[in-house]
Structures are given as structure tokens and as C-alpha cells.
């Protein structure tokens, strides 16, 4: 969930950063501050700081999501900025030249291509995000490291236990990597991989049906 929100935040911040001042300055300040803040500090700010300053209190889960979104929104903003800037100017121009609204040009031409470029890096960010949950023990989140600490205090086997904990993260990273590779492949043109081939098959059959209808019409006209 934190990932989905940070991608949305990141995209908005990337757009803000590519727009005109003062919006672009605000975005730049946000990006540079939160790329520098450690996850530990961020979550402490959100969980303890906001309740002290503003009297708003979050559950552990809410605070964790907000902290991750603040941090990773900044990184993903930069990933998206690079990806959006990699799309040739001609793509936007071609969209405008056929009379598409600029918003639609962005949504249907620029953004899909930029997302394809951004996906591998967003995958890395997601893995980093999972690891950063280990620092959330400070606000009492029961996750892998916390469990390890609890076990350690009774068994006194730190080396074995922490290696096992690392193993859990590595397995999680492998699973995520596999997932993101599948997404990447399905977005390739022409598509590769099982998901891509399945959707490509459906698309091809649909296009072939259209081709046959059109050929039938032109054939009857003797063209």
C-alpha cells in the first residue's frame, strides 16, 4: 500500500518539479530533504512528532505508511522525472498533432512509456521499503527484526538469528524481483513472458477479427 501511494506521490512531485517556479522549488526542497532523512527519523517524526506538535496520533501502521510514503515519494519522484524526460519530444508532438488534448497525450502516450522505463527502479525502491520496515521496531511494529530481538533475548544466539532474519528479507527481495520482472516483461513491446504473451494473444485475435471485417467489406466492393 505504501508503494502505491508513494508512486502516486512521486509522480505528482516529479510533475511539480518539472513545472514552473515556485512549485518546482518546493518539489526540489521536498525531494532533497526526504532523500536525506533516515527511515528511523522519519517514522519517529510521524509517530511521536506529529502527536506532540499537532495532537494528531496515528496507529503504528498508519505512521509506518506515512513515513514510507514521505521517504519513497522523494526517490520515486526522481525516478519518474528521469523517465518522463527520456520520452522524446516527438511523442508529445505526434499526440498533439492528431488533435489529442494535452492531458490525454500525457496519460495515454507519455506516461505509459515513462512507467515502462521507471518500473525496474520502482522495484528496487520496493525492496528498500520492505527493508526499512526493520527500523519501525522503534514505534513498536512487530516485524522480522523485532521478532528476532525478542528471540535473541531468550536464546542468546544473535549470529544465527540475525542471519535467519536476513534470509527472510532476501527471500522477500527475490519474490519482489520476480514479480517486477513479470510486470516489466508484460509491458515490453513486442511483449515477452507468459503474461505479455497471453494479453498479446487476445489483442492479436481482436485485431485479426477487425482485419477480416474490413477485408470482407472492401472485397465485396471489388477493391
Amino acid at each position, binding site marked *: 500500500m505504501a508503494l502505491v501511494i508513494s508512486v502516486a506521490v512521486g509522480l505528482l512531485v516529479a510533475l511539480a518539479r518539472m513545472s514552473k517556479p515556485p512549485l518546482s522549488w518546493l518539489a526540489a526542497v521536498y525531494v532533497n530533504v526526504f532523500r536525506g532523512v533516515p527511515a528511523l527519523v522519519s517514522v519517529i517524526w510521524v509517530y511521536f512528532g506529529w502527536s506532540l506538535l499537532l495532537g494528531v496520533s496515528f496507529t503504528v501502521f498508519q505512521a509506518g505508511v506515512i513515513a514510507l510514503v514521505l521517504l519513497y515519494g522523494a526517490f520515486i519522484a526522481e525516478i519518474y522525472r528521469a523517465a518522463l524526460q527520456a520520452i*522524446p519530444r*516527438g*511523442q508529445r*508532438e*505526434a*499526440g*498533439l*498533432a*492528431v*488533435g*489529442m*488534448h494535452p492531458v*490525454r497525450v500525457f496519460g*495515454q*502516450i507519455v506516461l*505509459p*512509456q515513462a512507467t*515502462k522505463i521507471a518500473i525496474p527502479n520502482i522495484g528496487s525502491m520496493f525492496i528498500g521499503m520492505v527493508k526499512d520496515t526493520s527500523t519501525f521496531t522503534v514505534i513498536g511494529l512487530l516485524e522480522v527484526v523485532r521478532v528476532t530481538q525478542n528471540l535473541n533475548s531468550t536464546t542468546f544466539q544473535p549470529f544465527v538469528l540475525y542471519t535467519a532474519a536476513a534470509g527472510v528479507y532476501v527471500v522477500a527481495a527475490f519474490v519482489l524481483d520476480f514479480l517486477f520482472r513479470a510486470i516489466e516483461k508484460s*509491458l515490453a*513491446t*513486442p511483449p515477452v513472458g507468459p503474461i505479455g504473451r497471453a494479453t498479446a494473444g487476445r*489483442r*492479436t485475435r*481482436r*485485431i*485479426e477479427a*477487425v*482485419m477480416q*471485417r*474490413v*477485408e470482407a467489406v*472492401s472485397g465485396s466492393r471489388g477493391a
Partner: protein
Amino acid sequence: MTTNRPAVSATSSDTSEHAVRGDVVVSLEGIRKSFGSTEVLHGVDLTVHAGEHVVVFGPSGSGKSTLLRTINLLEPPTAGSVRVLGIEYGPAASRARRGNPLELRRRVGMVFQQFNLFPHLTALHNVALALRAAKKLGRREAEERAAVALQQVGLLRFASRFPAELSGGQQQRVAIARALSLDPKVMLFDEPTSALDPELVGEVLAAMRRVAESGMTMVIVTHELNFAREIGDYNVFMDEGLIAESGPRGFFDNCTNPRTKQFMAAVL
């Protein structure tokens, strides 16, 4: 300004040699364009009539592509009048009284030097997306009309291919189909064969020739002077942001401006 010979004034002497001229489709007057502090168009006039094939040529950096791109406002002019089908879109009218650029672009087709197909969409959906966006068609109708457009450029059987799976010539023909599918009143071609391998130029020129034969109004920026000589009803030589010389059919053999002669000697 003084060296610029506006197309309108050219009519007086040229009418006899012209094919029957239709209504004015595009009228540019006093077009100026600056990028930062550099002015690249210094006040250009050009009139395009219905059914006419206007060829624009000249050395690189002469402003011919920029001029073409002011017609559909991909490069909004800094000053001057852009009238297309009787509606003013340029800075000659106040912002409130100008036509909507979206409407303009839906009536003006454009083909680019680099094809600019959308790489994440199949050939069919490159055309269908344009139809859905510009003509507000439903999915099924857009796909069928896109297929018809591909058939017109002889590429229906490649409908499900992605741009990366097509040759440069095929990509450019898809781009032509994409522009044609919207039933434009005028087609703009910006050096459509300059990015192609020599052996692929022919198929694109053939597709353009068919468009020309259908009676389409066309403005073509090109270095293919043999093609220009063949289809150009009105020929414009640009140099340093101005029209240096222009004339009707036969222009290539009768030009008088030393700069034009020099350029043609170098190219032909």
C-alpha cells in the same frame, strides 16, 4: 522582409500556369518566430489553396520546418496571422478570439521526419487512438476505421505489429495512415523521407503520391527535389528565415534568385 515574395502577390503573374485554384485553406501572414533571442522566421507569408501541393525546400536552418510547424501551432508564432479554413489561430487575434488549437489540429494532418509512432501501441492502435481522441469514436468503430486507413497505405496485414517490428518505410506509411484517418483538410509533411534508408524512400513517396492524386491539399517540406518537381504545384525556396523565391510548376527550371540556383546546383 523585402526579399520575401508573398504567395498572394505571385498569383497575378502565375495564374495561367496554375491548376484551377480552390478556396484558401491555409493563409500565413507576417509570421515571425523567435526562440529566446534568436529570430528564425522574419515575417513569412504563404497561401495554400484547396487541392494545391505546396513544396517548401531550402538549406537546413532556413526555417522551413518551423514554418510548417506554425501551421498546426506545434510552434506558435511570435507574431503574425495563421488562418486555417477561415479561422484565425495566430497572435494576430487576441487570445480570446483565437480558434481552439485542438480543433485546428483535428483538421490538419501532420507527418514527421522521425515518424513519431507510439512505440507502446500496435500499428492499428496508433491509428485508432488518434480516431478515438480526435473523432470521439468508440473502440470498435475506431479500430475498423483504423484498419481501413492501414489498408489504404497497403499495411493492413501488419495491423497487429508494433512499430519496432516494422521497417522505417512501413512506420512512415502507418504515420501517414494515422494522419489521413482523421479526414484532414490539409496534410503537412515535415521531411518525411529524410530519416529513411534510400531503398525505403520510394514506398513512402508512392504513398504520398497516392495522397496527392486523391486531391488532398498538401504542404511538403522535402529535400527530394525530383519528387518536388513532379508534384509541386507551387514551390517555395526558403533561406535564412524568409521566402527567397517562389513559383508555380516549372519553377525548378526557371528560378532566377542566385541563392536558389546555388542550392539546386548543390542538391540535384
